[in-house]
């Protein structure tokens, strides 16, 4: 019987997984949009995005638009690979039950 894969703990967190899944379909997204889509609080969202940033899975660009601070996040190539690997491991664990 083949050995079951480990799930990446950085990706596995529910909010972090939601963030990576949101970012994989877009080029970049603002903090406010990510907050709207996940329904997370500012503090929690900021903390989880920081973890993803520290893992090298997302990159952030902070800028001022119309004198207001704006944080724009984009997924890195490492993040994309980590999510792909996570989905592959998930498929294996679920024994091909998922169709994605």
């Amino acid at each position, binding site marked *: 019987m083949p050995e*079951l894969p480990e799930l990446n703990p950085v990706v*596995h967190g*529910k909010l972090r*997984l*939601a963030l990576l*899944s*949101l*970012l*994989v*379909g*877009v*080029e*970049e*997204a*603002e903090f*406010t*949009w990510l907050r*709207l*889509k996940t*329904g997370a609080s500012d503090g929690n969202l900021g903390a989880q995005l920081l973890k993803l940033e520290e893992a090298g899975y997302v990159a952030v660009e902070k800028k001022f638009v119309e004198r207001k601070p704006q944080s724009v996040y984009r997924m890195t190539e490492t993040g994309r690979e980590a999510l792909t690997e996570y*989905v592959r491991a*998930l498929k294996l*664990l*679920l024994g091909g*039950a*998922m169709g*994605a």
Partner: protein
Amino acid sequence: MNTDAEEMNLQERVSLIESMIAEGRQTAESWGWTFVLWGIAYYVAIFWAAWSVRPWSWPVELFGGNHWAWPITMLSAVALTMVIGLRGGRGKPNTGAGRAISSIWSAMGVSMLLLFPALSIAGKIDHHSFIAIVASFLGTANGACGLILKWRAELLTALVWWISSVLVCFVTEEQMMTIFLIAIFLCQIVFGVYAMSCEASTRRKAAIHA
């Protein structure tokens, strides 16, 4: 990882991934309203131009006697598209497909806004050529977007515009206007409403999964 609870947890993760990916794509792709807006704009321009001179006459004359109807309506539609688009797009993420699609429509819009006034001022365009070129432009833009999005409904729209652009070259003025009005109804109004209902349906599905 063999217990039911753990498997359910993993299934939840799968649903979460699917719904978030769908949500990201759906938010970036909401175009249906522009088709309806421009469909209405074409109708307003046509009937304003024709009926301000000869009220409720049929067939309508494409430019009628009112030379301001088309420029005013088209520029108003451009302004409305920009205002609603900018307001609705604020805070939304960028996608490659989204940028490609808006580039196609913007470039086509600039071409039309430069070409038609120039041809009109120079007196080198007739009604048949005007409709054939408009239909061909719209067929090209819809065809390109349909290929980018791999969306059969929009490719069908392109096909209707292309057929219309060829047909109007061989028919009478009355038949030409009928073809143009039907094409606008099918490709702008009907397709626009269909696209909006698809977007609403995707939004509902994403909300259920979230």
